[in-house]
């Protein structure tokens, strides 16, 4: 029997969703101040309107949902998934009001892409947008990378026991410290330290490359935010090829690879466990698959003679592959060059690394290295069982912060989520094919959206069919929240309609 949610359940969901949306509104103060600093008055007004809309919704929801009940598991998942929908609906107001979006749906696409750290965008005339609006694009991807719920946990939840359930609902399940709010703050400590170091390094190189100090700082900050969050937004339409600099590419790559690592790994390193980086299953998995696919793409492009020297070939291949594997989406080639220069094998290599993605409990998307590692270990374990005597007990373990024994329940969970990703990739790609896009382009773009990467081969554009935009929005949301929260929200809505 399906149990219909009671009024008390709605109140809990409404109250905490309201809190998260207030957090989104407060986050917009940063781009508002940026616009004021640069005398972008019309854009500043867009942010005032948007902040107030968030506060009206947030306070309104909390007034209508007064309750002392704490969150249960299902509430946590529903709040996490639901908050992302409301945060998208309201967070896209500044983009829509700017006049650079073709429709409200396009603006929603961009904001969902930002929150989910995807990096695909439909905004038009990016090279003429206000600094405040660019700040918002990058801030929402930086915030989305940390998890918008993590932000609310840090500042607004005041340590409720149920907060952990929302935190897990947002696709993060590492508890670095005993208390979830302390964990959220630890994530911020690591992220903000990297923010300062990364911004200083990128801004310094930007200055050396001939940028004016103000632009060097803003570009350094935004590229850091886009890289660390593995979002891939950039302030110019040329993305990171704008800088034409090996140094800039190397620093950006260091930032986005670091951003794609598990926060638990960061915390282990932070607290002195330096050896973890060479033992961790996710790092090993990432290194192996990146190396393999880089070799495949390098071979294909060398055969096609696309790049004139070995150095330029390696530089282009490694950057796009690392960017794809970390699900960042920075690129130093034109989108259509994947089709016109890289060809099917090159595109396939990028599609594979995007599908795998980077580490769990990080800002990255995709199936995740830990799942690939566990599936590989389970496969090897099964082979060992087959060739061992029947009476032999075959055990397998992997290392992630500590040694963990592999068991069938764990493998089943990993396989379920992996299957969810593969099915979503396939359905999204098939819908693209139904619209007339060729299979390799459609698969490339579908995997890019669902794995929250953001590399494009030209399918994503303001002129793409609206239904496909909706499919990509849904795919980005599903991929980022790793299905369970979205399934919980769907179950909640279903039980409201059909439950007793």
């Amino acid at each position, binding site marked *: 029997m399906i149990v219909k949610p009671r009024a008390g359940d709605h109140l809990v969901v409404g109250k905490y969703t309201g809190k998260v949306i207030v957090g989104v509104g407060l986050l917009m103060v940063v781009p508002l101040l940026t616009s004021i600093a640069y005398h972008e008055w019309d854009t500043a007004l867009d942010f005032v309107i948007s902040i107030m809309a968030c506060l009206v919704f947030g306070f309104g929801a909390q007034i209508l949902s007064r309750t002392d009940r704490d969150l249960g598991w299902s509430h946590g998942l529903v709040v996490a998934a639901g908050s992302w929908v409301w945060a998208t609906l309201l967070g896209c107001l500044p983009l829509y009001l700017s006049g650079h979006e073709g429709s409200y749906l396009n603006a929603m696409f961009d904001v969902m892409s930002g929150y989910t750290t995807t990096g695909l965008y439909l905004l038009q005339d990016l090279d003429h947008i206000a600094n405040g609006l660019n700040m918002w694009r990058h801030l929402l991807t930086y915030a989305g990378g940390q998890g918008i719920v993590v932000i609310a946990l840090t500042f607004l939840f005041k340590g409720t026991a149920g907060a952990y359930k929302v935190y897990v609902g947002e696709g993060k399940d590492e508890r670095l410290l005993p208390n979830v709010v302390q964990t959220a703050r630890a994530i911020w400590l690591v992220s903000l330290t990297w923010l300062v170091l990364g911004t200083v390094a990128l801004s310094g190189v930007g200055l050396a490359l001939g940028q004016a100090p103000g632009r060097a700082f803003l570009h350094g900050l935004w590229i850091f935010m886009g890289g660390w969050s593995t979002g891939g937004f950039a302030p110019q339409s040329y993305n990171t090829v704008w800088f034409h600099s090996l140094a800039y590419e190397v620093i950006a790559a260091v930032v986005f690879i670091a951003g794609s690592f598990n926060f638990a790994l960061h915390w282990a390193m932070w607290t002195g466990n330096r050896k973890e980086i060479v033992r961790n299953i996710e790092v090993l998995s990432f290194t192996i698959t990146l190396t393999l696919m880089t070799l495949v793409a390098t071979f294909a492009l060398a055969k096609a003679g696309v790049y004139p020297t070995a150095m330029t070939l390696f530089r282009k291949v490694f950057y796009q592959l690392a960017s794809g594997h970390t699900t960042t989406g920075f690129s130093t080639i034109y989108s259509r060059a994947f089709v016109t220069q890289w060809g099917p094998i090159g595109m396939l290599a990028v599609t594979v690394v995007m599908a795998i993605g980077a580490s769990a409990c990080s800002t990255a998307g995709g199936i995740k290295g830990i799942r690939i590692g566990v599936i590989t270990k389970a496969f090897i374990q099964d082979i060992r069982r087959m060739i061992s005597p029947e009476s032999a007990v075959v055990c397998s373990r992997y290392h992630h912060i500590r040694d963990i024994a592999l068991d069938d329940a764990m493998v089943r969970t990993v396989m379920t989520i992996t299957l969810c990703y593969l099915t979503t990739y396939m359905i999204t790609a098939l819908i693209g094919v139904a619209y007339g*896009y060729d299979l390799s382009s459609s698969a490339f773009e579908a995997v890019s959206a669902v794995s929250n990467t953001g590399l494009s081969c030209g399918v994503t554009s303001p002129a793409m069919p609206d239904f496909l935009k909706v499919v990509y929005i849904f795919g980005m949301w599903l991929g980022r929240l790793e299905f369970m929260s979205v399934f919980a929200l769907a179950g909640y809505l279903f039980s409201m309609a059909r439950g007793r």
Partner: protein
Amino acid sequence: MAGHHTAVRFATLLLIVGLSAPAIPAFAQAPSPNSPDSIGLVEQPKKYDGKTVEFTGEAIGEVMVRGEYAWIHINDDAYYAKNVEEGAPLGGYNSGMAVWVPAGITSRIMHYGDYQHEGDVVTVRGVFNAACAEHGGDMDIHAEELVVDVQGRHVVDEVKPWKLWLAIALSLIAALLYAMHRSGEASRTLGPVSRRR
């Protein structure tokens, strides 16, 4: 059972929508001053690789001087003559080419396009590289000549009065709701204390 039927209905609907989808809409790209334009160069890199091209468009962003040469970026998209802030209709993504020019001649460019500027419209003549060996495989144009065709200008994005009124109205409602929320929270905090008494 009802859930199963709903899922089947949803899947059928999705299939019908997908299969009845119209063909990819043709993108209404605004005319470029170039032939080939930047999109044509990206679409057919082999055809134009090593050829001399003339390329016209808006100087965008900034000049980045690297010794005797400098990087500029020229957009030949729908906004090269007029941008969205000035009232140009939306015409797709930005599109352009990176151009490597002698640093000295970039001083002719007075305005680079951004939110507050429409950049100078310039024409360069140079060699197109599909993957430049000198610049890490970047797609670029190496030009020695640069002519400013149209001077750029300062752009003011006027404040729209309706936005001002909307901002004021929403601010008042938000302030009212905040006061109600705070008073509600305060009464809830005091509630148990008064009950304990």
